[in-house]
């Protein structure tokens, strides 16, 4: 039961070739949002850090520094516009995603418990069934969403509030902006690892690129989404019982 072994929905097609049943997972807007956010996030992080870390000082200087600040502002517009586009163009999907990202259940607790054995050692006897986003993806989304709200609020004050707001408030905005940067960039490093580098996690990258996921992968990794809560629970209980009996 390791990783992405395709075990349930492979159908032998003509000449015995394996046919994979693809099911839609992300809309085009969602993928544009995701990758647009990736590009603008990286631009913002790189240009922002030049003003943050003293060892990058040479890059922050003079006209080059002004260009970097301009790029930061331009990227910020894109970074803020993308989620708004998503909400305006696909309000129902946006609401659905938002709800599922902030929903916490006991399966999330169990996922966290099973995370280290699974991702480090590939033990996958009985992972708690997951919704369209698994607990890790949800955690990433929550951190990025909350971080982005902090970025937007503090960034707008830093952009337009200079001289208009009390300096104490401005200073607090700078510190919060940087704090949000530290948290989200750390999260980004982990997200990048799990999405691109980790040996088991290629399927997420495929679905974020093409918008589809294989039914087999969805059954195993997103059972709650694929089967619905009742059937997913039944399967999960059965798997746990099987794992128990194997132990004995």
């Amino acid at each position, binding site marked *: 039961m390791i*990783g992405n072994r395709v075990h349930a929905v492979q159908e032998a097609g003509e000449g015995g070739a394996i046919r994979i049943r693809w099911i839609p997972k992300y809309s085009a807007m969602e993928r544009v949002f995701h990758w647009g956010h990736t590009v603008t996030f990286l631009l913002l992080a790189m240009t922002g850090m*030049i003003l943050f870390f*003293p060892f990058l000082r040479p890059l922050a200087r003079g006209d080059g520094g002004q260009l970097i600040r301009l790029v930061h502002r331009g990227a910020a517009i894109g970074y803020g516009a993308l989620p708004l586009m998503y909400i305006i163009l696909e309000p129902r999907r946006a609401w659905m995603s938002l709800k599922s990202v902030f929903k916490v259940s006991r399966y999330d607790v169990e996922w966290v418990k099973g995370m280290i054995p699974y991702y480090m050692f590939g033990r996958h006897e009985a992972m708690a069934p997951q919704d369209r986003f698994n607990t890790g993806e949800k955690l990433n989304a929550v951190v990025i969403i909350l971080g982005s709200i902090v970025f937007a609020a503090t960034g707008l004050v830093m952009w337009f509030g200079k001289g208009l707001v009390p300096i104490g408030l401005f200073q607090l905005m*700078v510190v919060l902006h940087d704090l949000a940067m530290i948290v989200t960039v750390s999260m980004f490093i982990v997200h990048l690892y799990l999405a691109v580098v980790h040996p088991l996690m290629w399927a997420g990258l495929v679905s974020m690129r093409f918008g589809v996921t294989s039914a087999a992968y969805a059954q195993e990794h997103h059972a709650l989404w694929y089967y619905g809560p009742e059937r997913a629970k039944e399967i999960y209980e059965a798997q746990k019982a099987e794992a128990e009996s194997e132990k004995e």
Partner: protein
Amino acid sequence: MSRVAMLIDESICMACRGCQVACKQWNDLPAEETTQRGTYENPPDRSAVTWQLVRFREHVQGDSVQWLFLTEGCFHCGNPACVEVCPTGALKQDPDLGIVTVETDLCNGCGYCTQFCPFGIPRLDTDVLTGEGKAFKCTMCQDRVSNGLTPACVKTCPAGAMDFGDREAMLAKGHARVEELKQAGFPNANLYGEHEMGGLGRLYVLKERPSLYGLPENPQYPVMANLWQGLLQPLGALAFGAAAVGVLGFWVIARRNIPMEEVE
């Protein structure tokens, strides 16, 4: 050379604003268009092209009005917050003279100095939308001073209210003048700037409490600057390092333990 300071005796200042003009002349700064606001104070505020400004304050005491003048400009703090928060190193403190200057070529216009100065001294000439611009402030005529001259404002002061020299000597002079004022019927007379912000390079002899001149009684180094530079920067480096090392270690362990031939 040791640390230098300007000593400005506000009990002598007659608010002729010669210092304002001399500052503009020496630093080649243009005049500003202004409006009549019913006061001699003019232009209304310091700016990117007005680095020194004489404030006129009316202090009403009983039936008499006291006119308090204050020659505003950079204080050249001994412990300057602007230098610490500047991300380019454009703001620097002369290690010998203690003069704080902005190197315009290095400045990228971020304006952090304007927001972290407890006196609100640096001024930004900027486009709000693009953020392009530069910060400016009094340089204590570093060019003149390092060539053995006094700052232009000090040189021009016809009342003899401004003095310049070794900071220790200026402090001694200031204290002596405060004693004189106290005996002459100004019990609140004081010397401003001896200990504030690591000791200021612009010292004032004042007849009244600093707050009556619009000066902060007890200027504080901004806590947020400490938090930012002292805590957040190392924390950031630590967090990114830990995350990167963490995922690398994770990857090594995962590679070793997960049989890839079983992954389809």
